[in-house]
């Protein structure tokens, strides 16, 4: 076995990202348990998270709507294997179509039985109804929604 000479390099850097007016309004909404979206005046698509411009029409999206905290789970994956600095596996990440939204909102999904890995898709098939669960302490960030849980009613 030959050795491969390497030497370690380490980065540990912190950044402050400016949210801007559009995402600040969205984050303020989350603090108040509201999911705010905005609408393209040209194509009427509803964006959540909101975006300042429509990427298709290049129009300013200045009309705001509140979406219900419920929708359909279109797709998800269970991360069995995480990575350094990431959440502790297993965890499920889903793409959720909130009722009235044109885009998917990515978030954690709970309620899966991870001891039955071969039945994951059957447990939450495409289109399953899910509902946002609010974090008890909300500080204006995406994890003010703790996760989405299956709406089994």
């Amino acid at each position, binding site marked *: 076995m030959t050795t491969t000479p390497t030497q370690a390099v380490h980065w540990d850097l912190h950044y402050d990202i400016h949210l801007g007016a559009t995402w600040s309004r969205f984050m303020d909404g989350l603090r108040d348990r509201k999911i705010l979206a905005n609408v393209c005046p040209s194509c009427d698509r509803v964006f959540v998270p909101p975006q300042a411009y429509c990427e298709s029409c290049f129009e300013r999206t200045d009309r705001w709507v509140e979406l219900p905290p419920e929708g359909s789970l279109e*797709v998800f994956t*269970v991360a069995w294997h995480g990575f*350094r*600095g990431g959440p502790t596996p297993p965890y499920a990440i889903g793409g959720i179509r909130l009722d009235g939204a044109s885009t998917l909102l990515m978030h954690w999904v709970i309620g899966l039985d991870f001891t039955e890995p071969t039945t994951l*898709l059957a447990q939450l098939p495409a289109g399953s109804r899910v509902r946002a669960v609010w974090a008890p302490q909300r500080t204006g960030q995406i994890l003010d929604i703790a996760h989405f849980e299956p709406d089994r009613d």
Partner: protein
Amino acid sequence: MPYRAAVVGAGITDATSPRKQQLSAVELCQQATWAALDHAGTTPDTLDGVVVGNIDGFEGTVLGARNLTRALGLGADLPVTIINTGGTTGGNLMQVAARMVRSGSHARVLCLGGPTFFGVRDLQSAINTNSPMIIEQPLGMGAYHMGAFAANAYRQRYGLTPEDLAAVVVADHEKASRNPHAHLRYTVTEDEVVNGRPLSSPLTQPMVCPVSAAAVAMIVADADDVDDLRSTPALIRAMGMSSDPYLGGGKGDFAEMQNLATLARRVYALADVRDPAAEFDVVEIFAPYAHMQPMQLEALQLAPPGGGVELIRSGATSAGGSLPTNLSGGPKCTNAGVAGELAPYAYAALQVMGAAPEPIQVPGARRALAHGTGGTFFQFENLAIFEALPRSDA
């Protein structure tokens, strides 16, 4: 179009795991560069530009490409253009070089892709930093986690089994076993793939590309100024790029590759391709995960919706089939970052130049399709069509 651009030389180093690699990134890039120059039959003094790429965060420096080019020993006065489009960096190198040549501002440009994943110890953590900050990054997604969304959506849409995904992997490994430059050159069974270590459902470790160390270089030149060269040029007949929204949630449908389908229609029209399945002699597509190749074949109109796996199982995409695809073994078996993304272009060009490694050469290949993709949730796509340009002096 004032000038036509062609690939006139390509160099691909043998690939290894990072652990076994004895050469530095610069040394691997030198090997690939000199192999490309040798293939073309020319010397560095005929080059008038370099297009090179890096991916921030993957290499422990944001100046990787700048320093790399300086150290190649090509001369002091070569202008360098640096591409940094995340996972599509390699796929975009030739697109940029070809635009430079077509515009007439440059006549002979080196495209260089190095081993970008080569040193990063926490690759999935680094990739998570490329996932959209604030909104999606806190959820914890590396590359294969993002890939898995499409795998599950595609499986559900068409009722595909884990064995169906495994069949794609079996075929890729069989092809890679015959490519001397490939990294994973062993064959696998469907059982081994299905029962591999689960990574992110439904993907198991064997369904996901390795981290490889290799370099790839290509020379893109004025197609009508090749008298001093010895290769058969691969004319870049048509090419294009397309992008989805940045946020993963902006994708319309994870079960089909709409962005690639749109790009394919555009690029096929440029090359007057009307019956794609019948008009390509060989295809190289960037399919690092098991579900991607069948989905891409469908988006490229090479298989009907939901029919990609069946096409692969039929042998049509294997050597000797009607649509040889990823005879290199593809990125599923060799993925060296920017080099890995440039590789489909290099292999496709080499095929129509008649200069692919002998065990994977498609006899008489005249028209090839090359593809790249990457970025968050594979938001960027790029495509090119190569045609053999027989030399008038041959």
